């Protein structure tokens, strides 16, 4: 009984319950048709939200005001860089991935440089940076329809027994992220800074270094996400990351991470990612118009957060 109660108190549980309910509703509507395919599709699409969501989660956990608004621009630029470096040849896949990773990490590092050197709120710093990155991307990838190498496109779409390989790898990655968060000095420091930056500093946490690493990590994850997206959708373009601004924040918060910082939740990011993708699938299956779909998506996000409730203010 107590174990059930402790399980029910886990905030991430609700995002999985939500995903399950939405999936069951869709399956009930189609009469069981396509139930498995839906899970496969949801897993392959949720992967991209989960990867940036984990990055965003680390940033948001740093405390109030910390958020990375440059992710969409970052994803767009990294997708173009990856595809250009790969140049359509299979032998360059690893180099292209590394280039995307480096681009993303550099963007994250610049973000933190702006926050640190100019003492600008992170929202404005990453917003200004995203304007500049966008321009770089437009002028760099101008008019080019850049295709991924066939091997890379196949890899990002590769499935084993109906489960996308990319999703399996992302599960491994998220387990690593959860370990880093709860068991490693880096993750514990991020949590400590989010709970009380001054106390963390007094306790000897290298606040500057940890924040720098967090923004760089988030940027790098955005970069790798851009490359994978370009592979999955068979081409890079400037707008490829646009929907990930709202999505990355939404999965973090629906997944039970506190926007006030200091409390993060990795499994919840997966639950919320699946929930959002399945929700979209359900509304598409019901055949509602684009307007109704948006309204319902919004109302459900507001409903979920209202039901989950905010925490009582500690301070």
């Amino acid at each position, binding site marked *: 009984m107590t174990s059930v109660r402790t399980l029910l108190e886990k905030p991430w549980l609700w995002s999985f319950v939500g995903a399950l309910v939405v999936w069951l509703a869709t399956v009930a509507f189609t009469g069981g048709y396509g139930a498995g395919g839906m899970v496969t599709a949801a897993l392959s699409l949720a992967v991209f939200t989960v990867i940036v969501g984990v990055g965003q989660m680390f940033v948001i956990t740093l405390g*109030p005001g910390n958020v990375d608004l440059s992710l969409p621009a970052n994803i767009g630029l990294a997708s173009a860089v990856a595809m250009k470096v790969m140049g359509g040849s299979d032998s360059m896949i690893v180099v292209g991935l590394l280039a995307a990773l480096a681009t993303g990490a550099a963007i994250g590092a610049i973000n933190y440089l702006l926050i640190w050197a100019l003492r600008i709120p992170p*929202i404005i710093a990453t*917003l200004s940076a995203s304007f500049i990155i966008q321009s770089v991307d437009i002028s760099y990838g101008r008019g080019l329809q850049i295709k991924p190498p066939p091997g890379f496109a196949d890899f990002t779409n590769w499935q084993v027994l109906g489960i996308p390989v990319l999703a399996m790898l992302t599960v491994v990655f998220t387990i690593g992220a959860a370990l880093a968060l709860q068991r490693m000095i880096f993750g514990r420091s991020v949590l400590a800074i989010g709970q009380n930056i001054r106390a963390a500093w007094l306790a000897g946490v290298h606040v500057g270094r940890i924040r720098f690493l967090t923004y760089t990590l988030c940027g790098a994850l955005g970069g790798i996400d851009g490359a994978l997206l370009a592979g999955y959708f068979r081409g890079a373009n400037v707008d490829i990351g646009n929907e990930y601004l709202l999505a990355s924040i939404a999965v973090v918060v629906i997944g039970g991470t506190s926007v006030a910082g200091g409390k993060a939740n990795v499994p919840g990011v997966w639950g919320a990612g699946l929930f959002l993708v399945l929700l979209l699938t359900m509304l598409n299956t019901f055949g509602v118009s684009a307007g109704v779909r948006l*309204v319902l998506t919004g109302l459900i996000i507001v409903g979920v957060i209202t039901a989950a409730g905010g925490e009582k203010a500690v301070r």
Partner: protein
Amino acid sequence: MLPDMTAITPGTLPKSSPRGTAARARLLRGLLPALSLALVLMAIAWLNPRAISYFGFNLMLNLAIPIALATVAQMFVIAGNELDLSIGTFVGFVGCVTATWLRDAPLIGILVLLGSIGVYALLGALIHLRNLPSIVVTLGMSFVWQGLAILVLPKPGGKAPDWLLSIMSFKPPYIPFPILAALIIAAIVHFGLMRTSYGVILRGSGGNAAALRRAGWSLLKTKIVLFALTGLFGVLSGMALIGITTSADANIGNGYTLLSIAGVILGGGEFVGGRVSPIGAVLGALTLALAASPLLTFMHIPPDWQVAANGAILIIVLAARVLISRRER
């Protein structure tokens, strides 16, 4: 001149610092929004003297009124330590209603717009009662407004009501209309928020909510009022926008979310502590509106890099603010 814009964190001002220098630095910081606007204006005057004229300003500041109104809207929620990520799509929704129902069935149009302000008030109540993060609630609402906008106006079109068109094309003598309107908006909001006793309470809800509650003020009410004011100015912004563009599109306001946040910060506002400045916010919006395209076209910056230049202007102004703030201590 602008005493309220100079408020700084009490803790950052050491008692030992000479009062004169600190006061001067504070004044400088308060004037920064005006200085950055002046700088952008001078750059335009230098690049193209003919732009500094009645018609030049009318053209360059074409979209300044809706941007200023949206920025003021955002400023109200920021005064209460919240953030509205839905203001852009809300402006778009209002635009779609303005270009359709407000023209064809004015009564329904007015009711819908008043109702949407009511929705904002309810959101304020919800956020306060359930202690929800406003970022997420307004994020969800941004989908709702966008969806409603598409339902109201599936394809770009519609037409602004004639009375609105004639208001927005008003040509006062000597002073270009956008500047006159900005002055009026700034003056009204400045008086309401900075000079009335309830305005102080509203800002206090962002500054020290616990103290306000102990003094017997209702935090629920302040939050509702702040959100309703955001809704009101969002409605005004959407209507002004359609009065200028004459027709609507469901995506017409999407850029306003980030623009309005940038405008508030550029105008000396801060995300926490109820430290905002209506005059600064309007100046920040004007600076952004000016910097957005005319300046860059005059400077022969290729279209690819215009967005980057916007980002660079933001960074430069904020860097200047940091330099001045450092002298404060």
